[in-house]
C-alpha cells in the first residue's frame, strides 16, 4: 500500500501554495479545512459567494450570528477590512476572473481539466449545483482537493469524466492524498509525489500516462 497523507496534511499542503494577498474561495466540504492552515501571519482574503470578502473563522457558540454565514451556511465572522455585497456583485467577481484561487472537491477530473463535482447522475437523486459551476470557471487557479481513489478503488483522475460535468477544461491542479498533479496540455503531470509514490506507481493507480511536471518558480 502506497503512502497516503491525511486530509489535514493535504489541506496544509494546499495552504502552502497560496501566497499572501491572494483572494481565495474555499469550496464547501474538505476544502474548508485549508483555512485552518493559512498562516496567521499572512493576509489571505477569503471570499464566500453569498456576499463577503474578508471572511474570518467560526465564532464562539454564543456569538453565532445567523446573518453572517458562509456558502456552506455555517456561522463565520468578518475580519477588519471585510466588505459585504449582493449576489450579482459576488458572482460577477467570480465570473469576471478576480479570484486568484478556488479550492474545490471533485468526483472526477479529466486529463484536459474537466471537473465533475456536482452530480453523480444517479437516478432519483435530487440535482443541486449551487455555485460550483461559477467557481469552476471563474478563478484564475482552480485547485481540486480530493482523495486520488474512490472508496472502491477507482481513480478520480480519468481520461474523460463519466459523471456530469461542472466545468470544461477549468482545473489547474489536483491535490490528492497520493500526489499533486498539474493539468497540462499533455495531460496530468506529477508536481509532487508523497512518500513512496512515484510517477510510475501513480500511473498504475490511475491507469493514465503521467509525466513529471516541469519545475515552476515560486507559485
Amino acid at each position: 500500500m502506497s503512502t497516503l497523507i491525511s486530509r489535514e496534511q493535504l489541506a496544509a499542503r494546499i495552504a502552502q501554495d497560496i501566497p499572501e494577498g491572494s483572494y481565495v474561495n474555499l469550496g464547501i466540504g474538505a476544502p474548508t479545512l485549508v483555512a485552518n492552515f493559512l498562516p496567521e501571519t499572512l493576509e489571505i482574503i477569503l471570499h464566500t459567494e453569498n456576499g463577503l470578502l474578508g471572511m474570518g473563522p467560526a465564532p464562539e457558540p454564543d456569538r453565532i450570528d445567523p446573518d453572517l454565514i458562509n456558502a456552506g451556511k455555517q456561522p463565520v465572522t468578518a475580519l477588519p477590512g471585510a466588505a459585504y455585497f449582493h449576489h450579482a456583485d459576488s458572482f460577477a467577481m467570480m465570473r469576471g476572473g478576480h479570484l486568484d484561487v478556488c479550492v474545490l472537491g471533485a468526483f472526477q477530473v479529466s486529463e484536459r481539466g474537466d471537473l465533475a463535482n456536482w452530480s453523480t447522475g444517479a437516478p432519483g437523486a435530487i440535482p443541486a449545483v449551487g455555485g460550483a459551476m461559477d467557481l469552476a470557471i471563474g478563478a484564475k487557479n482552480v485547485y481540486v482537493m480530493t482523495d486520488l481513489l474512490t472508496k472502491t478503488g477507482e481513480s478520480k483522475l480519468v481520461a474523460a469524466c463519466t459523471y456530469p460535468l461542472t466545468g470544461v477544461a477549468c482545473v489547474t491542479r489536483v491535490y490528492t492524498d497520493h500526489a499533486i498533479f498539474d493539468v497540462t496540455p499533455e495531460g496530468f503531470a506529477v508536481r509532487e509525489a508523497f512518500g513512496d509514490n512515484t510517477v510510475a506507481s501513480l500511473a498504475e493507480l490511475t491507469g493514465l500516462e503521467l509525466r513529471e511536471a516541469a519545475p515552476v518558480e515560486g507559485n
Partner: protein
Amino acid sequence: MIDKTVGSVADAVAGIRDGATVMIGGFGRAGQPVELIDALIAHGAKDLTVVNNNAGNGDLGLAALLAKKRVRKILCSFPRQHDSWVFDGLYRAGEIELELVPQGNLAERIRAAGAGIGAFFSPTGVGTELAEGKELREIDGRTYALEYPIRADVALVSAYRGDRWGNLVYRETARNFGPIMAAAATTTIVQVDEIVPLGSLDPESIVTPGIFVDRVVAVGERDWLRDGAFVGGVDIEGRPLVSASTGSATGPRTKADQ
C-alpha cells in the same frame, strides 16, 4: 407624502394572485423573509412559481409554503440540503417542478430583468447538462451560453432597516439576493426590523433605493440584536441557546450545504 409603509404583513402581501411568480430573498435562512412567507401562506395564493436560491429548510418559511402545496414550480440553484425534506418529498412524488440554475446565472438573470437587459452570454455551465439546448457562441476564444432574464410579479425581501420611501439597508450576508430581486419584480414587498425616519439612512450606504420598493413592513428586531447591536445567544437558525445543563438547542448539522 410618499408612504410605502404598511401596518401588517397581511396588508403587505395583499393582492398576490394565484399563479404569480414570486421571488423570495435569502440564502438558506439568512435574509429569508419568514414573516412575509407566513403571511403569504395565510393569504392563500396558490399555483405559484417561486424563485429562491434554495428550496426550503426545515419546516418553516419557504419549506412551510411548499408543504402547503402552494408552489407549482421552483427555480433555484441548490434544492438538496440536509434539512430540505419537504422539497425532497414533493419532488420525488412529482408534485413540484424544478428548474435548476447555477447560482451565478440565477443572480445575473435576476439582475438582467431589473436592468432591462434582453439576454446575455454567460460562461457558466457551458459544456454541462445545465446548458443543454442553450444558444452557444464563441467570443474572443471563449464559449458562452445565452441566458435570459428572470422576472417576477412579486418579490418578498427581508432587509434590515427601511424608510417610508422604501430605501433599504441590509445586514451582513443576509443582503444576498435582496437587492437584485427588489429590482426584478413588478411589486416588491419588504420586511425590515425597523422603519426609520426619512433621512436617517446614509445616502452613501443605501443598498436598495426606494424606486425598487413598493411596500415596507416592520416585523421587529431579530432575536440576536438589541437596539441594533449584536448580542448573540442564538444558534444558526436564530433559536435561543439553552443553558449548557440542558444541552444545546442546536440540532446536529450532518453536513455542509451550499
